[in-house]
């Protein structure tokens, strides 16, 4: 098998991120002129010592790094765990070797990925030994255990040979992961998806887990390794001598202290702070935001300042604000399997009439990001190739405030001679109750009414909206106004494949909300999944983005920027990959 060996730092970045944005191709998404925008290069120097308080509203999704999947959780895992690859603060696209020593070696057919790892990265107490390739192997294996329940392992590592046998309980190990020695790990794949596997190695799933210590916790249902975890990063969650976490109380606090076994010489992280206290449960984000802005040593965690507070910050203390592209987007999905949206022209009409500026206003207006015209967000590979900020060129997304005349034209083409919907059917629309999401739902309903549709808006909690309605095709929801997707890493596949690939329509936890199932789109995705090389992948996925946009399965309305805030005495550093404060680089002034 012929391998493509990547040596230089630039090429390393390309291989890892699988995007062309490394070459600055996402310049059209640059927000550096905007008030509060994070500069292209942040100052990474800081003062050692002190305590930072991270003010959070909710808890992490999972304290177990093997199951962690949300931005806020990544904020913690990037400080406590060393995955094979990680993202430095200023580059959202190109990961750098972390536990690994160099770029992954992806074979030319994309079926083998080889990674060399450092030999001198030690686990925190009570394990106290150096991490090996076997620990990385176990970390990935345990992610497939139902007691751990990682939400993305199947999507990115499902092609590893032997995964199915392992999941079915027919094998005790995943046969396709080889560890020929303690510093080498090889992933053997059924298909040539090595490109995306290499990218996904920057997720916390690849942070080593010592099997001899963790197996007993993983045997429990659910696994209790999360509350007994060990760290490899500069910080660890406060724990007793046996490793049981004392610094984690769900919904209350996560206390990070220095990992005594961390060796600065092996890491690119600065780790200025001595301790980090994450204070959870600040449900009133207005109070919490004001507390951060007027207090000392505080930053926000899992929430952004509400629109009125944001406006105030922009006018009074913009230097306490940090705006950065999130790598995600929000859209209103239209169920392409149900009437009237099983008619392409009717869908195009809805997109044409939609006032997306009104939708964006519900979340805070232009400050919170540009209006989306297609599905790959800024700061992602393939964004520029798909049309950048101006869009793919379709007329029905040309007017941010909507165009009723054009919409009526499409309605006529769709079989409604008056240009208005004349059916009597009420359209089930399920949104999230409360806050900006509810406002977005209400605005979306009003847009649909412009063409005579009769949306029947039902508002439920966000979790119910997803798990009982929009994620369940059997629920026959016609419109989901509050859905969106965030990248997992900077490969465009992570945005388009879960959300628009027909083969990903499943009975439960379906994230292809429009249930788009177009043969040409599906086959283009099948081909693009096995493309190796960032430039080629970006082109392939950008073409798919254009295809999807032409199908009008959803109304993209904002490419979100994330707003972060800090106290004046915090020298905050944003991790642009995670769009949140980088705890390993932030310091106190």
């Amino acid at each position, binding site marked *: 098998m012929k391998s493509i060996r990547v040596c230089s730092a630039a090429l390393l970045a390309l291989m890892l991120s699988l995007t062309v944005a490394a070459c600055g191709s996402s310049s059209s998404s640059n927000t550096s002129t905007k008030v509060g925008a994070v500069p292209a290069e942040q100052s990474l120097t800081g003062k050692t010592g002190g305590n930072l308080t991270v*003010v959070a509203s*909710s*808890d992490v*999704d*999972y*304290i*177990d790094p093997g*199951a962690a*999947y949300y931005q806020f959780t990544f904020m913690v895992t990037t400080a406590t765990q060393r995955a094979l690859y990680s993202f430095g603060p200023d580059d959202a696209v190109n990961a750098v070797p972390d536990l690994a020593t160099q770029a992954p070696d992806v074979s030319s057919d994309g079926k083998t990925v080889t990674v060399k790892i450092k030999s001198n990265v030690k686990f925190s107490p009570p394990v106290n030994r150096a991490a090996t390739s076997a620990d990385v192997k176990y970390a990935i294996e345990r992610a497939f255990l*139902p*007691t751990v*329940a*990682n*939400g*993305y392992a*199947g*999507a990115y590592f*499902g092609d590893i040979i032997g995964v199915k046998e392992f*999941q079915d309980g027919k094998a005790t190990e995943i046969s396709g992961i080889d560890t020929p020695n303690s510093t080498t790990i090889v992933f053997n794949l059924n298909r040539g998806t090595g490109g995306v596997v290499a990218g996904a190695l920057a997720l916390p799933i690849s942070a080593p887990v010592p099997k001899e210590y963790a197996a007993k916790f993983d045997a429990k*249902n*659910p*696994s*209790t390794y*999360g*509350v007994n975890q060990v760290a490899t990063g500069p910080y660890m969650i406060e724990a007793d001598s046996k490793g049981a976490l004392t610094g984690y*109380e*769900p*919904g*209350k606090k996560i206390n990070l202290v220095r990992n005594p076994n961390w060796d600065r010489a092996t890491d690119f992280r600065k780790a200025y702070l001595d301790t980090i206290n994450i*204070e959870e*449960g*600040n*449900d*009133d984000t207005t*109070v*919490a935001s*004001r*507390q951060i802005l*007027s*207090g000392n040593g505080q930053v926000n965690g899992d929430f952004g300042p509400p629109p009125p507070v944001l406006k105030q910050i922009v006018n009074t203390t913009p230097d306490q604000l940090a705006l950065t592209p999130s790598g995600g987007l929000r859209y209103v999905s239209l169920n392409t399997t149900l009437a009237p949206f099983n008619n392409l022209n009717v869908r195009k009409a809805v997109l044409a009439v939609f006032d997306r500026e009104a939708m964006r206003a519900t979340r805070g207006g232009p400050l919170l990001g540009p209006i989306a015209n297609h599905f790959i967000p800024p700061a992602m590979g393939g964004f520029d190739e798909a049309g950048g900020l101006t869009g793919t060129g379709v007329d029905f997304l040309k007017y941010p405030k909507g165009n009723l005349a054009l919409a009526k034209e499409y309605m006529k083409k769709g079989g409604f001679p008056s240009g208005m919907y004349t059916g009597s059917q009420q359209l089930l629309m399920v949104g999230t109750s409360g806050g900006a999401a509810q406002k977005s739902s209400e605005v979306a309903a009003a847009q649909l009414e412009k063409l005579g549709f009769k949306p029947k808006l039902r508002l*439920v*909690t*966000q*979790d*119910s909206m*997803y*798990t*009982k*309605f929009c*994620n369940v095709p059997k629920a026959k929801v016609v419109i989901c106004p509050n859905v969106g997707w965030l990248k997992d890493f900077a490969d465009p596949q992570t945005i388009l494949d*879960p959300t628009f690939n027909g083969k990903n329509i*499943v*009975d*439960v*936890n379906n*994230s292809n909300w429009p249930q788009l199932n177009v043969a040409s789109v599906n086959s283009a995705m099948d081909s693009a999944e096995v493309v190796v090389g960032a430039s080629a992948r970006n082109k392939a996925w950008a073409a798919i983005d254009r295809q999807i946009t032409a199908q009008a399965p959803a109304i993209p309305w904002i490419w979100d920027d994330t707003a972060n805030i800090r106290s004046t005495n915090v020298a905050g550093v944003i991790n642009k990959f995670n769009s949140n404060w980088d705890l390993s680089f932030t310091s106190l002034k």
Partner: protein
Amino acid sequence: MIRYILRRLLWVVFLLFAVSFITFVIFYLLPSADPAALRAGRQPNPALVASIRHQLGLDQPWYVQYGRYMKNLIFHFDFGFSYQNGVPVRQLIFSRLPASISLAAGAAFLWLVVGIGVGIIAAVRPRTKLDRASMGLALVGISAPVYWLGLVALYLFSSDIGLIPILPGANSYVPLSEDPFSWFTSLIMPWCVLAVSFAAFYSRLLRGNLTEVLNEDYIRTARAKGLSERRVVFRHGLRSAITPIVTIFGLDLGILLGGAILTETVFNIPGIGRLSYSSIVRSDLPVIQGTVLLGAFFIVFANLFVDIFYAFLDPRVRYE
């Protein structure tokens, strides 16, 4: 008396069973989120969701799940594991309980002292300016929603964001075991805010009762016998007028011990109320069950104590 207590205790057990059963049924009948799907994360394959459903026992009929839950609860005092954090529910509840008790006990002390004090003063000086002013203020106190009052108090007096920064505010709760002084200062504002509406209601109720009692014949007799006004009011009047206060106090305290959701939310106090709310939002049934049972436990026991206390308060009451 002992027979009465035993009979009431049996009722308590029955009630707790009923509450747990109703909670379980409601969870299954109403459209809440799917715990297996939530736990599986954003992009799981269907096999993983099914596997988690099996692991959590959610693929069993609801009555089997309920039976298993009750068995573990009765024989092992095991409330199960949180679907979301994989932490034992018992541990979650016990870690939150001190904060709820701290909040409820302090506020209860305040509203009893203020409510009873103001009620007595207003009753013994009816139709005076003091009476009218205190009852007017009480009306304002009853009308002000606790979350609004909490936010106003924060914006006025909180040491970090207040206009007159004199009291620790949001996100400042410190457990008693860590630092008693900080515990006390961090709870001053929540205690006051929580106590306002209760104190206002109690004072109006007591004023009404006491005014009525002070016009009774036996009070006139007591006065005619030459007893001091203080003795008349406190020994004879108040003892009779306070009975309804004791009844509602038992209920109120029981409810608050089960969690003061709004106050805990506004002041970021990690108590049972916030735990209940977040578990409802996340469809975390074992935690919902645990907190509901705890709330029911406090309410029925508070009632039991109130009923027993009646016998001491009012010599006419006998339980046979």
